[in-house]
C-alpha cells in the first residue's frame, strides 16, 4: 500500500512537472537573440527563396503559354525543363506556410498529390474554372501540370493531344497563370507588409514568429518530407505501397530529386546557411548550441545534422524514381523513412523541449 501511495505521489509530481513544461509560455524565455534570427530567416532565406520561386513560375507561365499556342516537341521539352526548375524552386518555400502563404492556402493550391486525372479531364472541358475553391486542390498546381505534360502519353502523343484539342492548352495556361499569381501575391505581401510584422513579432508565445515558423518547419519535415514524399508511397500508413502517390509521379524520375532538394532546404534553414548563396546567420543550430543542449553526450544540433546527412546519403544511392522503388524494392524506401523518422523525433521532441516551444498541430483527424 505504501508503495502504491508513494508511486501515486511520484506520478503526481511527474505529471505536475510535465504540465509545467508543456505550458510553453513566455515566462522563462532564454536570452538568445530571436530578433536577429528572424531577420536572418526573412532576409537571407525567405525573401530570396520566394524571389527565386517567383522568377521560376513566371518563366513557367511564359513557357506554358508558348507551348499552348503552338504545341511542338521542342517547346514541350523546354516547358518540361522549366517545369522541373520551378518545381525544384518550390521545395525551398514549401514549408514557409506562415503569413501570406498561410492566409492564401498556398501549399494546398500548389502541391497536392496525387492529383486527380479524372477531375482534371472533367474540369478542362469547361471554360470557366473556379480554381480558388478548395475542392479543386487536386486539379491544379505542379501535380496537375505534371499530368498535362507527362500523363497523357509520351511527348509526341502529348503534342498531338494539345494540337487537336485546345482545351488542354487553355487549362495548362490557366494553371500556370494561377501559380504565378499566387506566388506574386505572397512575395508582394512579404515585401510590403509582412516582413516587418514577422521580424517584430519576437516573443515566445504560441503566435510568435519563432514559435510558428519552427512549428511549420517541423510539420513540413514530418508530414511532407517524411510522410508525403516517402512514407505514404512506401505504404507506411496504408499497409501496402502506393506507387502512384509519389511527388512528380508522371515525370517518373523526378521524385528523388525533389525529395533531396527539400531535404537540402530543411538543412539550410536549420543550419542558418541561408538560401543558396545568401549570407549565413543564426538559426536553430546556433540556438541549440547557445543553450548548450546535449543529447546522450553529444550536441543535439550535431545529432540532427548527422541524421539529416544520413537520410541524404541513403537517398543519393537510390534510383531516381521512388515510384518504381515503391513498386519493386520498397524495403529501400522503408529504410529511408526510418532515418527520417529518427530526425523527426530529434526535432519534434528533443529540440522543441529544449527551445520551450509547444507543438501547435496534432495529427489530423482525417474525419
Amino acid at each position: 500500500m505504501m508503495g502504491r501511495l508513494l508511486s501515486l505521489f511520484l506520478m503526481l509530481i511527474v505529471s505536475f512537472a510535465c504540465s509545467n513544461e508543456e505550458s510553453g509560455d513566455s515566462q522563462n524565455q532564454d536570452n538568445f537573440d530571436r530578433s536577429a534570427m528572424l531577420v536572418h530567416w526573412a532576409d537571407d532565406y525567405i525573401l530570396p527563396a520566394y524571389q527565386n520561386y517567383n522568377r521560376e513560375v513566371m518563366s513557367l507561365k511564359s513557357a506554358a503559354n508558348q507551348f499552348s499556342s503552338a504545341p511542338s516537341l521542342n517547346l514541350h521539352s523546354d516547358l518540361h525543363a522549366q517545369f522541373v526548375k520551378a518545381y525544384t524552386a518550390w521545395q525551398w518555400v514549401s514549408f514557409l506556410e506562415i503569413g501570406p502563404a498561410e492566409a492564401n492556402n498556398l501549399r494546398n493550391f500548389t502541391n497536392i498529390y496525387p492529383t486527380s486525372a479524372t477531375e482534371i479531364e472533367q474540369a478542362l472541358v469547361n471554360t470557366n474554372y473556379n480554381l480558388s475553391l478548395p475542392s479543386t486542390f487536386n486539379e491544379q498546381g505542379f501535380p496537375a501540370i505534371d499530368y498535362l505534360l507527362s500523363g497523357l502519353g509520351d511527348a509526341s502523343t502529348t503534342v498531338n493531344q494539345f494540337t487537336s484539342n485546345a482545351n488542354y492548352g487553355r487549362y495548362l495556361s490557366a494553371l500556370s497563370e494561377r501559380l504565378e499569381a499566387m506566388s506574386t501575391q505572397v512575395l508582394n505581401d512579404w515585401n510590403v507588409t509582412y516582413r516587418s510584422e514577422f521580424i517584430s513579432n519576437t516573443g515566445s508565445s504560441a503566435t510568435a514568429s519563432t514559435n510558428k515558423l519552427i512549428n511549420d518547419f517541423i510539420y513540413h519535415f514530418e508530414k511532407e518530407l517524411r510522410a508525403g514524399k516517402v512514407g505514404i508511397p512506401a505504404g507506411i500508413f496504408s499497409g501496402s505501397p502506393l506507387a502512384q502517390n509519389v511527388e512528380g509521379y508522371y515525370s517518373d524520375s523526378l521524385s528523388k530529386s525533389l525529395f533531396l532538394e527539400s531535404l537540402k532546404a530543411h538543412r539550410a534553414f536549420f543550419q542558418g546557411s541561408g538560401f543558396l548563396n545568401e549570407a549565413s546567420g543564426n538559426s536553430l543550430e546556433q540556438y541549440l548550441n547557445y543553450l548548450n543542449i546535449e543529447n546522450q553526450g553529444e550536441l543535439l544540433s550535431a545529432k540532427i545534422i548527422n541524421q539529416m546527412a544520413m537520410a541524404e546519403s541513403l537517398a543519393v544511392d537510390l534510383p531516381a524514381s521512388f515510384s518504381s522503388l515503391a513498386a519493386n524494392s520498397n524495403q529501400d524506401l522503408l529504410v529511408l523513412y526510418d532515418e527520417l523518422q529518427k530526425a523527426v523525433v530529434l526535432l519534434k521532441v528533443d529540440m522543441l523541449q529544449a527551445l520551450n516551444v509547444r507543438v501547435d498541430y496534432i495529427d489530423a483527424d482525417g474525419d
Partner: protein
Amino acid sequence: MRKSLPLLSALSLGLIIFSSCEKDENTTTNQTPAVTAPTFYNFERNNASSVNFSGQSERLAMGAELSAALLDFSKSSQDLQEMFANADSLGNDVDPYTDATLNASSKSIRSKVAASYELFSANSALSATIKADMESFIDLQVAEIYSARNEAASAGKAGQIADGSAVRYVNAQGFEYNEFLIKSLIGALCVDQMLNNYLSLSVLDEGNNREDNDNTLLLEGTNFTNMEHKWDEAYGYLFGLADDPSNPLTNLGANDVFLNKYLARVNGDADFSSYAQDIFNAFKLGRAAILAGEYSIRDQQIAIIKDRVSNIIGIRSVYYLQAAKNAFAANQPGTALHDLGEAYGFIYSLMFTQNPNTQAPYFTAQEVENILSDLISQGPNGLWDLDAATLDNLSNQIADRFSFSVNQAAN
C-alpha cells in the same frame, strides 16, 4: 448457517477492500477467480461459435455507405432517406446500397435510432422527435448544401471551405449536416442500443432469460442463449466491423466511422490509454460470466462499459469544442466549423449515455437541447459567431458532469 456467517462477512470485507483498490488500479480481471476472461472474444459450444451480432455489423455498414453518400452530390434526398430507412416512404423494400448483402438485409438504421428499452419504451414521442431530427439533417444537407457546393462559403453564405487540405461543405450558419448526422448516430444508434438496451438488466434478464441461460436453453435454431445473444449485440455495436471481431483491438478505428473510431481516438490520448483494453476486457469477462452464470460479475462489467463508453462521448464533445476554439484563434475557420460539426453530434449523443451509478443519462434530452441552442445561437451567422468564452463555458458544463478535465479531453 450460523457457522458460515463469520466467513461470509470476512469475504464481504475482502470484497470491500478489493473494490476500493479497484478504483486505483482500474483492473477488472484479477478480482474474481471464479471466472476468467479468454484472450479473444471467442465462445463456442457444440464445436461452433455461439457469438452472433450480424445485425449490428449490417447497420454499421449501412451507416458507412450513408456517410459517404451524404457527400455524393448526385444523390437525391429520397435516395439518402432510403439508405437511412432501408425502405421507401411507404415502407416498401428498396435496394439503396452498393453492397448486395445490405440490400438483402431486413435491418435498417432508422428502426434502431432512439429505440432502447430503458429510454424510449415509454417515450415514443421523444423517439419520434429524434428520428425526425436525423431525417431533417439529411433533407437539409441536400436542400442547403448540394446547391451551394461550387461556391466558397463565408459567414452567412453556404458553400465549401478548406480545412487544411480537406474540403468541408457547410450551410450559411456553418452547419456541416453530414457531421451532425453521423456523429449524432453514434449516440442515437450505437450508444443507445448498447448501454440502454442490450446491457440493460431489463433486457438481459427479461422473462426467463436467467433460468434459460442457467439451463443452457438455446434460442430455437441458434447456438446461443437469449442472454448471450443480447450481450453479443451490445458488443457488435462497438466491434462489429473489425477485421477480426474476436480480436478487435489490432485494427481499432480502421473500418468503422462510428463509435469504434472514437474509442481509438480517445484511447490514443495518454490520459485515457486504458479505455480500449478496459472495454474489451469487460466484454470478454462479462460474456464468460454469463456462461458461468455469475451474474454479479457480469453486472460489474456492465458498469465498466457504461462508464467508459459514456466518457468517450463526453471527452469527444469537449475535445472538439476546444479544437474549434484553437482553430478560430489560428484563423482557420474551415477547421473550426468542421470541429463544431463533430462537436454538435457528440453533444447530441450525450443524451444516450448512462451513468452506471445513477442509471440515468449524464445529460437529459432537454439539457442537450439547451447546450446545442447555445452553440448555434450566438449570432445571426450561427457557428461563425462563436467566441472562445462560450466554447470554454460549454466545455466546462460538459466536463463537470464527468471525471475528466477539459484539459485532459483537449490534448
